């Protein structure tokens, strides 16, 4: 008979069996048995400074490794603080397992100290959730949770474990396989539908592919680039699809959406065959899908059948994993000549470049983002926050072999620093840069302590304009320059913040020698904080 161990020890063993190398969390009494057990494990536990950031750090970790990110919090307020992190991951389909402590199972429902119905509260932001009522279920629950999180349409799974269950003794045996009668995600695309797409491509004169975050989650970047190049099919992307196509790819035509490039939107609108790959057709990417479906054959490829037809009625739906489906496409010869169309798009791109008129005497954020991303190591990770900084980042980031992370679906301010931490923890050899505004920086700069404590060196750049710029811009256009609730007067001196955390600091006040300054900043050992003074009234 196997030796008995506690539920908490079993939880740690489950994480080890799943190959987890780091968890991000915050303790409390209800999760104390778990943190007591992980103390003996090789798994690194990283203490964040607020639970929400444990969720974002797990998200950054997952997006760099393709593995499930893990965050841990205690019951009650610990669990509720985690919700925004979970919801952010859910909106971007990021694989995550969130573990929460819960009060003693016999006291659940009596509103005892730090009790919150967390499985109830996160229901609409998780792929699945468990409230474990018997420690014997722990191995099965963990096995299932990791499987569910990282298959099909990926997403967060929550496991809520009452403290008495963590202390209950069990014989540990980790299941080899999962058996879930209700969950069988479709991987392979339907052969008939695939043939229809091939046919549509042969009939098309102006085809275009629009890639979303699903392509990255399926790890199909290489396949998409190859397919586009081989058949000369132009590609645009949504915000979450940044990182699929390198900037220099001859078939790449930029980001669509209300914050994208006019030529990319025009390209999509003028196409006669639109192939959506792993994109949700959400409002910010395609605001009037019905206008497109009127004149265009729409192919929609997604792993989640519910996304197909939700916002746009496609002519040819395909459910399955994009990488598998692209491999199936490769089996067919496609005779189509789109050279006229491509020449037209190249001209569109040339004629419709965004023209900016940056004010002298400030850092131009657009130019800054371009130089920064070109100065980074080729495979570096660029994490953009939310707000004007995000739009400048999306528009002017030069994609090479790196990764671009941002909170696209939920648009959660404060995402960049914790997510960058998770990314760096996932791959210590990679350069990681977080770009935020002065609003979003102040939402998560408490994590500078986490970076220092756990030796997670990242470079942070604050585009400082003393305003919540995105809303200020909205008020400029919509409310006649009535700037309500957007001034950031009272913000701290960033140089002193950097000093308080013993971090090198650089301030850029204009464009003088900017390339050299950025290169010097990036070349420094360890973490660093850079402040870029930008025009408060600049618009994206």
């Amino acid at each position: 008979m196997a030796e008995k161990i506690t539920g908490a020890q079993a939880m740690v063993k489950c994480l080890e069996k799943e190959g987890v190398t780091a968890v991000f969390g915050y303790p409390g009494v209800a999760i104390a048995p778990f943190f007591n057990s992980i103390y003996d494990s090789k798994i690194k536990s990283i203490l964040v400074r607020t639970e929400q950031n444990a969720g974002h750090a797990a998200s950054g970790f997952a997006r760099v490794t393709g593995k499930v990110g893990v965050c841990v919090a205690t019951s009650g307020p610990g669990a509720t603080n985690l919700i925004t992190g979970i919801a952010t991951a859910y909106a971007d389909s990021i694989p995550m397992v969130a573990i929460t402590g819960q009060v003693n199972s016999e006291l659940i429902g009596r509103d005892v100290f730090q009790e919150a119905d967390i499985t109830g509260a996160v229901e609409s932001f998780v792929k699945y959730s468990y409230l474990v009522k018997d420690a014997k279920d722990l191995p099965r629950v963990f096995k299932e949770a990791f499987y569910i999180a990282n298959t099909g349409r990926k997403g967060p799974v929550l496991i809520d474990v009452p403290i008495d269950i963590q202390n209950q003794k069990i014989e540990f045996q980790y299941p080899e396989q999962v058996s879930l009668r209700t969950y069988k995600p479709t991987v392979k695309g339907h052969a008939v539908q695939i043939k229809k797409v091939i046919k549509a491509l042969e009939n098309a004169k102006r085809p275009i592919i629009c890639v979303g975050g699903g392509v990255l989650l399926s790890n199909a970047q290489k396949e998409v680039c190859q397919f586009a190049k081989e058949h000369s099919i132009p590609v645009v992307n949504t915000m979450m699809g940044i990182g699929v196509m390198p900037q220099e790819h001859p078939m790449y035509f930029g980001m669509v959406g209300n914050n994208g490039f006019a030529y990319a939107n025009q390209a999509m609108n003028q196409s006669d065959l639109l192939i959506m790959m792993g994109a949700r057709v959400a409002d910010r990417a395609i605001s009037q899908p019905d206008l497109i479906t009127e004149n265009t054959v729409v192919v929609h490829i997604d792993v989640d059948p519910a996304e197909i037809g939700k916002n746009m009625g496609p002519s040819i739906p395909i459910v399955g994993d994009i990488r598998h489906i692209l491999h199936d496409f490769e089996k067919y010869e496609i005779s189509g000549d789109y050279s006229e169309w491509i020449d037209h798009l190249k001209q569109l791109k040339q004629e419709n470049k965004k023209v900016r008129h940056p004010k002298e005497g400030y850092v131009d954020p657009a130019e800054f983002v371009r130089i920064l991303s070109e100065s980074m190591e080729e495979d570096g990770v660029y994490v953009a926050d939310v707000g004007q900084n995000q739009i400048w980042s999306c528009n002017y980031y030069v994609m090479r072999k790196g990764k671009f992370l941002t909170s696209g679906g939920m648009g959660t301010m404060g995402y960049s620093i914790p997510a960058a931490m998770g990314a760096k923890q996932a791959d210590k050899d990679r350069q990681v840069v977080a770009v935020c505004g002065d609003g979003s920086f102040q939402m998560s700069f408490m994590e500078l302590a986490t970076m220092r404590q756990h030796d997670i060196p990242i470079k942070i750049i604050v585009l400082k304009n003393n305003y919540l710029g995105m809303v200020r811009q909205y008020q400029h256009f919509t409310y006649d320059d009535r700037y309500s609730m957007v001034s950031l007067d009272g913000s701290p001196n960033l140089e002193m913040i950097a000093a308080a955390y013993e971090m090198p600091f650089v301030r850029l006040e204009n464009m003088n020698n900017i390339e050299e300054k950025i290169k010097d900043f990036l070349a420094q050992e360890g973490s660093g904080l850079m402040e870029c003074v930008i025009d408060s009234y600049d618009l994206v």
Partner: protein
Amino acid sequence: MKKIFSVLVENRSGVLCKVAGLFSRRCFNIDSLAVGETEEKDVSVMTIVSSGDERTMEQIEKQLNKKLDIIKVKTFTEENSVSRELMLIKVKYQQNNRSDIIEICNVLNASVLDMSTSTLLIQICDTPEKIELLIQMLSPFGIVELARTGTLALQKCMS
């Protein structure tokens, strides 16, 4: 359009909440909902009647299918299924109108289960339309209270 969803679910705590939560979160209508066990102890069936446009009906089916506690989703229209609902209704009566009420019950296949000197408790098991009709017929007498189960439905037998 109206659609009946017959949803086989894992018989676990919290599943009803998850399904109901899905409808409220995505602004889908629930016209009626009935839940009960099936011949398999660990499987329950929820019969949900909803109405809306075609895209919404399709989304309901797809979103239900995404839920991990849901084993199977079957959809029926009123034509290809048999549906029934049970109602208990209490009405006031007087000496001079009691037989009128009993006559209505006879015509509509409803039965009197209990009575007092002033009220009758009537049961009907029929289609939702017939139940509506009975309510309409009895309301002039004064309805004290009523309870309905919501629609149950199964697909018609096919030979």
